[in-house]
């Protein structure tokens, strides 16, 4: 802990600085490769739609530890030779049987037959009958939700930061996270269920949460950027990223811990199910969300701001001042120390003690 704390101190004071903004092209390249890779996986491997999206019939038999899966297969094939049954063990005591859509009135009798075959009560059999249009509904709603959310968030972020560039950068980072997560999901071959869609959509909120925290610091650091000539916009934004680094790590670790707990329980104790589907999407999404808030969102915002004439002029002025030797921030070895102001410098009237009104 002491190390992380010391590291945090050095980052805060500017003693240690990682040139995240300065090397943004490198990070952009990494992100472009990641996103392209995700898109390629999506195109060539594709997502593995779960039964909710394909339509079909699914049974889950509880409390059949150690039983053979072929029994179920035989029962189904006997009655519905063309139903293409897939039987899998879930966790340690459940068996899942998936087959194509059968007539809805036949769902209950088959459940009874399966229960008989495994010698369990029919009340231990869960069944789902899903019409082919249901999944389409879920996906349409998800996409609709995504679009509405993006529009609303653009408005909220623009209003909050009073800077559309921040909103744009935040949204790009968001899409980056979403595409990457969906790509990883496709790579994992897990079935996409409504629960995983929940996971994807939750990333929306979380990815932005992280970005908002970093941008808030950027905004604070660069509030008076034009009225000083010690540092450029790039440097102050970079300082903000460095200063929030410890915070970002802590918040993501804390957010990931419960998610990993669900992922672990969901994968090893329960097998497939709501918990596992949500948590895999969330785990990947949160991790990449932290990455993107540091390495994508802020550098992108800086890249956008740098195109602004007044920022460009300010940067030129600052560099010219340093060139002329008039700046006090250049270290003897030529590097620039960008950091918070240390005591001893004038901090403005606001830092002075105030007289309390007499009562």
């Amino acid at each position, binding site marked *: 802990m002491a190390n*992380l704390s010391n590291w945090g101190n050095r980052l805060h004071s500017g003693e240690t600085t990682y040139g995240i903004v300065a090397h943004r092209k490198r990070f952009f390249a990494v992100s472009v490769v990641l996103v392209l890779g995700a898109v390629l996986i999506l195109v060539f491997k594709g997502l593995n739609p779960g039964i909710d999206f394909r339509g079909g019939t699914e049974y889950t038999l509880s409390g059949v530890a150690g039983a053979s899966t072929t029994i179920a297969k035989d029962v189904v094939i006997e009655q519905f030779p063309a139903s293409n049954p897939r039987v899998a063990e879930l966790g340690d005591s459940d068996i899942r049987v998936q087959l194509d859509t059968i007539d809805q009135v036949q769902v209950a009798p088959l459940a009874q037959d399966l229960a008989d075959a495994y010698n369990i009560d029919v009340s231990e059999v869960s069944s789902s009958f899903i019409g082919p249009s249901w999944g389409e509904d879920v996906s349409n709603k998800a996409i609709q939700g995504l679009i509405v959310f993006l529009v609303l*968030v653009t408005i909220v972020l623009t209003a909050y930061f009073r800077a559309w560039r921040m909103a744009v950068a935040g949204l790009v980072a968001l899409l980056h996270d979403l595409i990457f997560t969906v790509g990883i999901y496709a790579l994992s071959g897990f079935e996409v269920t409504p629960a995983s869609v929940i996971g994807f959509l939750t990333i929306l909120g979380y990815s*932005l949460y992280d970005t908002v925290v970093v941008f808030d610091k950027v905004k604070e650091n660069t509030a008076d950027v034009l009225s000083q000539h010690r540092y450029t916009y790039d440097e102050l934004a970079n300082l903000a990223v460095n200063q929030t680094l410890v915070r970002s790590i802590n918040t993501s670790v*804390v957010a990931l*811990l*419960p998610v990993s707990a669900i992922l672990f329980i969901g994968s090893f104790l329960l097998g497939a199910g*709501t918990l596992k589907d949500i948590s895999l999407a969330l785990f990947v999404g949160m991790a990449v969300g932290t990455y993107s808030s540091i390495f994508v969102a802020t550098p992108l915002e800086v890249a956008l701001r740098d195109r602004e004439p007044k920022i460009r002029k300010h940067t030129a002025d600052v560099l010219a001042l340093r060139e002329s030797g008039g700046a006090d921030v250049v270290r003897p070895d030529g590097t620039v120390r960008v950091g918070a102001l240390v005591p*001893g410098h004038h901090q403005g009237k606001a830092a002075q003690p105030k007289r309390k009104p007499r009562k």
Partner: protein
Amino acid sequence: MSSAAKSARRSLQGLVWIIVILFGLLTLGVTTHQKDASFAPLLGLDLEGGVQIILKAKTTGDVVPDASDMKQAVEIIRKRVDASGTSEAEITTQGDLNIIVSLPGDPDQATLDLVRKSAQLQFRPVLVQQQVFASSVVLPSASPSTDPTPSPTASADTLTGSDTSATPTPSASAAGADTAGIDTMSPASEVANVKTAASANPSASPSPTPSAAPAVTDPAVPTNPSDPAWITPEVIAAFAALDCTDQKQLTDVPLGDPEAAFATCGSDGQFKYILGPVEMTGTDVATASSGPNITQANTSDGTYAVFLKMTGSGGTKFADTTRRLNGLSSPLNQFGILLDGVVISAPSVTKGAITGGDASISGSFTQASAQQLANQLKFGALPLTLEVDSEQNIAATKGANELQSGMIAGLIGLILVVVYSLFQYRALGAVTVGSLVVAGGMTYLVIALLSWGIGYRLSLAGVAGLIVAIGITADSFIVYFERVKDELREGRSLVAAVEHGWRRARRTILAADAVNFLAALVLYILAVGNVRGFAFTLGLTTLVDLVVVFMFTHPTLGLLARTKFFGDGHRFSGLDPKQLGRDVIYKGRGRVSTGEAKDEPKLTLAERKAQKARASASAGEKE
């Protein structure tokens, strides 16, 4: 005591009050045995076990059904389910097209059928009626022999105005099969097969009435819904192809074009019909009931009747139609009532137009069959067609397993977060833990209250939302603590750092929570299925998080900052300025705390500055 400390105490007191009030409400609800009030929140179907059926409105093209139609459909399904005695059913709409019916426990097949039944009620005039078994022609003599319930009017059903003032002559005998119902309500009633007056139509072969024959070849434009000119060769072909002995023809029938003639079976499988275009639908029926048939002499004649009440506009349509039908010969004077495309009753109109909006169907009913038809008319009147989109039957044991696993996952997650916070923030981590406990307690109380108040049910996705929320809630504490640390690093005293850091962190937390809440809200409004349960808990915990940060975490930290342990920056307080790269903190009023330097002589400001300048010169550009 400073005003900051006072307001911190006030906040904490406020929080205590909130929790006490929430808890008191819940306890009150539970102890007075209010419905659904319980210390254990209601569980969703996926945890409790039960059947969930998702019905989808059939649409033509892109036309979205009216929201009021959907609402009405929900009402009707609720009535059907309630009538079946199933308690705790939850029926809601979701999105524009879906109706979700959740039946906890292990509902019986009949109840499920009730829900699945889309039940569209249509009223079409009868153009052709044919008995299925009796060769191809309905002979008048055939019916009495099949009639199990002898009734004065040859066991026929009649449609009569019950508002006597409007129809002075309560109408007459009739023909028409009053039929039994549709499978779900009960298996065919005995009245069903009563067929009589079908008497009509001696020339009943495909082309119905003599007058109709020319119309078939001649593409004349029908003048009114009873005009046999509606019967096209296609309809005749469909009519000929109907096999009403096949159960499938009775259960899975397409509704047919409302603007054209339509061939279908009677629900008893005894008759088949060709009917004119739709003249009224279920929405025109305000209500229906059944009871003993009251004769004109105001006495019961031992038979039963179904009483219909039309809506305002329905009454007008009904009057127009009955006026027209009244003058026609059988079977053209029969008014077919179709439920889901199958004729459930086809009473005849022989005693004049029914103008009051009140009508009765009498004839061959028993008490049960009358009740059944009344129910079909009343509850069957769904304004739109629904089909089963998905149906899930969750075994109770599976749900219990998943709930248990969810709890274990939550517990592990919580422990991990607590351990990490204590490790990372030392004593400050205890504030995190305290905040999480408060947040958890409030969330529990709110969910239990919502269970009671609005019947909210916690689903597995909701549980996942709660677990994920542990991390997200703890995040706002971290944002705050890191902020305070930043302020300490900049040389503020702890009390000042807490106030200052709070002001800045507050903005960040508000903005970040707003984004999270927005995401939850959009998900909740737009999403279908169990996405909603997740969005709900996520939104709820975001709000709880705000309350806890404002009313617990910040005030607590504000008060703790004034204690010796934290204020002097104890090594384990997590707020030790030395560990934050600062050996000297300004304590106010010219006093300076230097941590270890208790014994060392106090240096003057100038001496300290000089010392520091030397130190920093030797250590490079360190501060």
